[in-house]
């Protein structure tokens, strides 16, 4: 049986990070423990502007249910949100608003650009549409599709969960992160 066939047959329960485990206890590095906590409790800010927003409603609905991944609580204020999900077309008029919301989000923060319009302007190569939100804010995961199916949005969320799970605690203080912020003039 091929490798992934075995993988498919044996449903992989969320495997714990590597660490020492014994009778009744499990020890892992502090970073991994914090990553595990962050990974399964991401509070998304649904920046839903157009058609991808309706597909996000389907993802939040009972059929595809984003709550299975710990993102049950949507927060519409950037103060209590870790994950900015930009779904749908972002016009140039919307640029400063998107930037303001991103800057005011609580650290550590991640960004998903859901859909072709958010990732690269999509089918609207016009004078009034911002060609991809990475011109204004740094993006962690791009989800293709117009609109992406709910499974793709959930796949994007799982990629973010991997990022959040394995992120080192010092990444946000590293020089490379500071350069990224300098590139987007976010002081």
């Amino acid at each position, binding site marked *: 049986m091929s490798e992934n066939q075995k993988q498919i047959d044996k449903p992989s329960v969320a495997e714990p990070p590597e660490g020492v485990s014994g009778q009744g206890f499990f020890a892992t590095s502090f970073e991994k423990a914090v990553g595990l906590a962050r990974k399964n409790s991401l509070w998304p800010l649904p920046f839903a502007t157009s058609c991808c927003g309706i597909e996000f409603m389907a993802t939040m609905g009972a059929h595809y249910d984003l709550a299975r991944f710990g993102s049950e609580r949507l927060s519409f204020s950037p103060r209590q949100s870790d994950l900015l999900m930009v779904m749908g*077309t972002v016009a140039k008029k919307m640029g400063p608003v998107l930037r303001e919301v991103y800057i005011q989000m609580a650290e550590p923060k991640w960004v998903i650009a859901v859909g072709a319009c958010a990732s690269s302007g999509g089918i609207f190569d016009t*004078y009034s549409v911002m060609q991809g939100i990475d011109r204004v804010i740094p993006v962690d995961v791009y989800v293709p599709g117009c609109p992406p199916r709910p499974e793709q949005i959930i796949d994007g969320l799982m990629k973010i969960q991997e990022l959040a799970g394995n992120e080192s605690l010092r990444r946000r203080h590293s020089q490379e992160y500071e350069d990224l912020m300098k590139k987007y003039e976010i002081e």
Partner: protein
Amino acid sequence: MAIDLDTDYWDKDVVRSEEPKEYNTLNVGPTHPATHGVFQNVMLMDGEFIVSTEQTIGYIHRAFEKIAERRPFYQITPLTDRLNYCSSPINNMGWHMTVEKLLGIETPKRVDYLRIVIMELARIADHIICNSVIGVDSGALTGFTYIFQDREYIYEIYEEICGARLTTNMGRIGGFERNFSDKAWTKIRHFLKTFPAHLKEFETLLARNRIFMDRTINVGPFPADRALAYGFTGPNLRACGVDYDVRVMNPYCSYEEFDFIVPIGQNGDTYDRFMVRQEEMKQSMHIIEQAIAKLDKMEDKETYYASDPRFVLPPKEKVYNNMEALIWHFKIVMGETDIPVGEVYHCVEAANGELGFYLVSDGGRTPSRLHFRRPCFIFYQAYPEMVKGNMLSDAILTMSSMNVIAGELDA
């Protein structure tokens, strides 16, 4: 001084001083959970009452009409299903009918009935979102999660027919791209059997609910003459009491053979809009049943496109084996077919109202001008007048009951 204890002692607002009342501004801005889309209302508030509202829209303006001037006719269909993306098949078929009117293509009866089945399904899907979101805005979340399952089921029907869930790009100018599979028919019949029970349960959840009735009756009422002056169409106009429905007044796609009632309300408030949409969902189910009955009676189960070849791609086996079909296929795809010069206006009863297409063609491969008559853009300008003097929580409910879709608002 002796304070006389009459009952409205507190209402005199002892602290109210003589200098002019100072209102505070509240910004129900682009990223706001209650606006279900990206438009902004800066409201002058006196306590909790709204004094005046100033609207800003255009936050996802994508210049549809400019793009439409650069695309051949059949490539404009993907544009139209991003107008009102909650019920995109209606927009697609509205556009196809406009081009058929320009080219003078007569679609066979079977195509008309297939289109009616799809358009009524899309209307149900759009009303599902609007009515469940009225519930969400007045605090009843169960309705939303419960009835959204049926919209998922309609998505499955769309997938059977055209492969896409939301932005369907369904059908072609002159008919459809393929015949409906049997699986699609079984799903439609299953939907017809199960949806009425779910709809009734959803309605009993909200319609006679004391809190919901207090929150929606007489909220954002709008008189019929003002509604007509502001260009209202669709469920919002019918809620004000005017029974204008494009399917009845200017029947297209052989709607005149179907009998269905047009529900109207009395004073155009949120409860009327909710009940009009509920009743329209039932009428749409009734229309689909009649259409399926007519389709079953028809003996030919094959034709799914008009016989006029100008815009209909020849079947694949012909294209590979027959030179003329290959040339014809290439001409259609490259948009070299001859389009007559002329201008035409055609409108369709979309879920939000009369969706019109004003097409001016100068014979070239792309329209010289295409204007979309977008119902949301027209009736949303009456919003400040509807919420003046109401409380903020009522204004939020009025907005969600008008079903303003951002894609259609700033096309």
